[in-house]
């Protein structure tokens, strides 16, 4: 038994990597394009575009359909659907605190929000609107003229303007005042004893912090959890076998809202996710060596879930009135 324990200890210690301390994200650290905070007019335009279902091929789907603000900016099911009715291949990632992110999509194939925004708009399986058609559709909705003029000074509609507006709106989706943040700021009653226990496990025995670190609980890196679904993830993008099956670590702010979990939505609850890690992840090939059995008790899992609950903050994001055609 002792041997067994020391083996576990070794495995744990052997794999300890540097983690940024958990903290509250600072808006001062956001790298806006050109270091310019977006104007409220640009954000309004972006928000309107984000919610406008008329901009998909079948006029039935907007960014907000899959990045649903009422479902943690995810779609609430393992796999959503595109405008033409086809099932999406991966679970929609949430978009909380992407203002601080350095890489986008599950496989990190974009490095700016502006670039990312184009993807789902043009993708055949999603909104299915190649940019020229998208811009044409936009130009035919009269109400956008004044929104664009307010944001840019004239009525010109082009790809750069549209994507910068969507990205500007997305950068306002910020979670930085959760019970955890209030606790970190010195309000010791902001987190319950159970949640504090969970936080200590998160940073210690459960090893969560090795990937979910920093102010946004993500290393912005890619890991293979042993999920064996033939999706090459990061490996396909960088054409590097060592990254096959690796996906971006999602940030955990508002994680309770963003169920289901994993790039394929295979885990329904936070409890399920922790149990998955507790057994050392899946059995697929090329698994990250950080994935080791954790020997957490059910009570410890209970505490971890309580901690994850304390990362929650409801953002009141009201859908805009859509401009008239």
């Amino acid at each position: 038994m002792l041997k067994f324990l020391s083996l576990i200890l070794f495995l744990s210690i052997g794999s300890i990597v540097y983690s940024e301390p958990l903290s509250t994200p600072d808006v001062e650290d956001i790298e806006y394009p050109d270091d310019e905070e977006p104007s409220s007019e640009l954000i309004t335009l972006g928000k309107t575009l984000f919610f406008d279902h008329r901009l998909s091929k079948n006029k039935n789907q907007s960014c907000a359909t899959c990045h649903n603000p009422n479902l943690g900016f995810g779609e609430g099911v393992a796999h959503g659907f595109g405008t033409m009715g086809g099932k999406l291949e991966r679970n929609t990632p949430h978009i909380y605190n992407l203002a601080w992110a350095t890489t986008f999509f599950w496989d990190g194939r974009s490095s700016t929000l502006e670039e990312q925004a184009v993807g789902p708009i043009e993708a055949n399986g999603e909104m299915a609107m190649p940019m020229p058609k998208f811009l044409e559709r936009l130009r035919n909705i009269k109400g956008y003229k004044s929104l664009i003029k307010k944001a840019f000074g004239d009525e010109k509609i082009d790809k750069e303007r549209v994507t910068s507006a969507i990205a500007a709106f997305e950068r306002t989706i910020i979670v930085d005042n959760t019970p955890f943040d209030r606790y970190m700021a010195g309000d010791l009653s902001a987190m319950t004893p159970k949640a504090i226990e969970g936080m200590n496990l998160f940073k210690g025995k459960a090893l969560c912090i090795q990937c979910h670190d920093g102010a946004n609980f993500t290393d912005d890196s890619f890991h293979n959890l042993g999920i064996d679904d033939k999706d090459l993830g990061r490996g396909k993008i960088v054409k590097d076998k060592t990254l096959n099956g690796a996906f971006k670590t999602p940030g955990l702010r508002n994680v309770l809202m963003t169920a289901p979990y994993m790039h394929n939505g295979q885990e329904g609850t936070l409890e399920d996710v922790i149990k998955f890690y507790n057994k050392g992840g899946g059995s697929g090939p090329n698994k990250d060596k950080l994935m080791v059995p954790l020997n957490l008790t059910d009570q410890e899992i209970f505490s971890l879930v309580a901690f994850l609950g304390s990362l929650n903050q409801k953002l009141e994001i009201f859908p805009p009135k859509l401009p008239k055609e």
Partner: protein
Amino acid sequence: MNLSNIIIIFLCIVSVGFTQNTNITGTFTFKKRNPGVALLYFDQDKGLKVSNANLDQMNKAFVKPLLVVNPGSEVKFKNSDAVDHNIYASDKKQKVNFDVGLITTGGDTNYKVEWDKGKVVKLRCKIHPKMKSYIASIESEFHKVVPFEKREKELTFEMSSVPENLDSLVIWMPKYKELHVNLKPGESKTFELTRKGKVKGFLSLKRSVAIDEK
């Protein structure tokens, strides 16, 4: 060794001994965010010979914000981190693309810098998109790397022992317009630092008159 050789050597030593050097004091001021790192160099000099350039990685970061080498140098990328890294560069504008492949914990890989002088190329890690550093390929011994701390808005630095005969200075910062300026001994000048056509800060430089180094 004949006498003429000895005389030449002697003259060289004397000439070095009599080289009039200058010191430069500079102050960066930024309106908002600083660019992380700046490189200044006098591009008339060709004396740089870097023989054991290396760039290590620790705690999911490159240990240096910018590495200066001369064209043709071999750089040893080391990984002293507890996790694997995979360094690459993909700079379409300057046409520098390379990928050194996976460097596992404790490992290293050599890479020969074969780009033209004057290029500064961004390094990234395929596994850790937050990581970044730069390699500057220049020939000048007389250069200065100025790293900025997060949120630092004003920073003063010194650059010492610059021969008085060098007066063409290059100022490089990521995403900023590269400046080619002239700064003679005894001059004080202030330059606008611009990014996408917008003035984001200033650099004030003060160069001493030539001093006799002993």
